[in-house]
């Protein structure tokens, strides 16, 4: 078995995974606490349609994913207003549209294996361009999350009070949606479009059981996401497993153990 770090593609995978693990909890915390976790799923299925579209017309699939994800989150936000009080309808409609479109467009892609690699994640396929794109968009998502941390907390905890204090809540909600779209798209390369919503939710869910404050929740969920992705890459490399699936399963096992270990404290 060759040394893991002697492989150029694994170095790229570790770098990309490290960036994704940094930004996923930044936006995942907001989605989980605003009870919008399912939006990650709906967006990732739309991202898959964008990937198929990118493969079909010959552009970088991540760019296609970003384009379709942004349409998806705008669609969710519009439909949420139309179905006020029943916001989950919007999520299901957009997710269905994403799956349907991905299924139709997949027939026109030249390589079914390429689409598969985006569905379940791949470390071999990460190009230098993918890595730079991931780095640039990751820095953008992290920077916006940091700059808007006061607004994100306030809108997440009590949107009405935030509005009264002068927070532009509609704009902040659109920013949350845009950050979700970008995060899901860049993460689909390595974690897989079908599994990225797990990386948005599981580290945050585990951190909520351990943290005593909002700030701690974000910091712990970043540390956990880093541990899950880096651990998952090691295990998947040496055990010859799918990296995305391994990352998610490590997270689920940790979450289950944490839930058992902290059940008395949380009662």
């Amino acid at each position, binding site marked *: 078995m060759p040394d893991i770090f002697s492989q150029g593609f694994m170095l790229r995978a570790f770098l990309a995974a490290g960036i994704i693990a940094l930004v996923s909890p930044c936006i995942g915390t907001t989605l989980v606490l605003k009870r919008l976790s399912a939006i990650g799923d709906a967006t990732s299925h739309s991202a898959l349609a964008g990937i198929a579209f990118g493969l079909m017309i010959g552009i970088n699939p991540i760019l296609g994913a970003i384009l379709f994800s942004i349409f998806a989150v705008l669609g969710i936000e519009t439909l949420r207003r139309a179905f006020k009080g029943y916001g989950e309808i919007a999520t299901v409609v957009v997710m269905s549209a994403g799956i349907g479109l991905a299924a139709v467009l997949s027939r026109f892609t030249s390589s079914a294996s390429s689409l598969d690699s985006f569905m379940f994640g791949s470390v071999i396929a990460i190009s230098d361009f993918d890595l730079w794109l991931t780095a640039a968009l990751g820095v953008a998502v992290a920077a916006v999350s940091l700059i808007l941390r*006061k*607004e994100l*907390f306030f809108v997440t905890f009590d949107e009405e*009070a*935030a509005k*009264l*204090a002068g927070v532009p809540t509609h704009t902040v909600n659109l920013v949350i949606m845009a950050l979700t779209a970008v995060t899901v798209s860049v993460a689909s390369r390595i974690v897989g479009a079908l599994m990225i919503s797990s990386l948005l939710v599981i580290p945050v869910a585990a*951190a909520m059981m351990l943290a*005593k404050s*909002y700030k701690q929740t974000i910091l712990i969920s970043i540390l956990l996401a880093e541990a899950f992705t880096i651990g998952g890459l090691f295990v998947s490399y040496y055990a010859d497993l799918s990296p995305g699936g391994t990352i998610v399963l490590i997270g689920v096992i940790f979450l289950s153990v944490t839930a058992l270990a902290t059940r008395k404290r949380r009662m």
Partner: protein
Amino acid sequence: MDEILRVENLNFEYPDAPVLRDVSFTLNKGDFLGIIGANGAGKSTLIKLILNLLPCPKGAITLFGEDISSFKDAHKIGYVSQKSNAFAKNFPATVEEVVAANLYSQKKLFSRYTRADRERVRDVLSRVGMDGYLDKPIGKLSGGQQQRVFIARALVAEPELLLMDEPTSGVDAANAAAITDIITDLNSRGMTIVMTNHDTPALFKISSVLLIFCEHGNGEFVKKTDLTLDEVNDIFAGRRKHHHA
């Protein structure tokens, strides 16, 4: 007298029912308005209209001499909602984070949470009797303690007008009495208060002016000194109509 709030000929209706009909009153600095009325009479709706959380279709609302449509001084108004503590109990936030959030109206985009801000948060928590709770998770507090924290959150921005919608609803008797004391103290220091409460005698005791909704919307605005509690109850029950001097 500094005029704080003026409501003129306010009308509002939901698609299925009229709620407010031709409501008018003026509050000056230091007034304490108690709003009395049955469920659905329009008490919460009136507060939401004053806060511009609902569009004002007919009539006019003026805050600090400015029409609410152009009013921008968010920090001048504090609000404690009936459902402030309706958040998920396992929401991971400390008392400090919840109170400090409302400093937003005085902060710029890139501004940081400073030591002076922390002192301000400590100070308002002390004023509502919640010293020592700074680092406690908000979800672990009792309903009454949470309500005190939400009063502190409203106070941290140093408002001049405080609107409170049933602040003692669902709160145990000891905390309800403590909250009433806090509100009375704020009013005695010159803060203008608007408050709804189902407990008419309690509200009658602490307010200086009353708005009484006997049925849908027709609010009678009266000075407390003009009436006894029995007369207020009669207006509320529709047995009597008050005639302004």
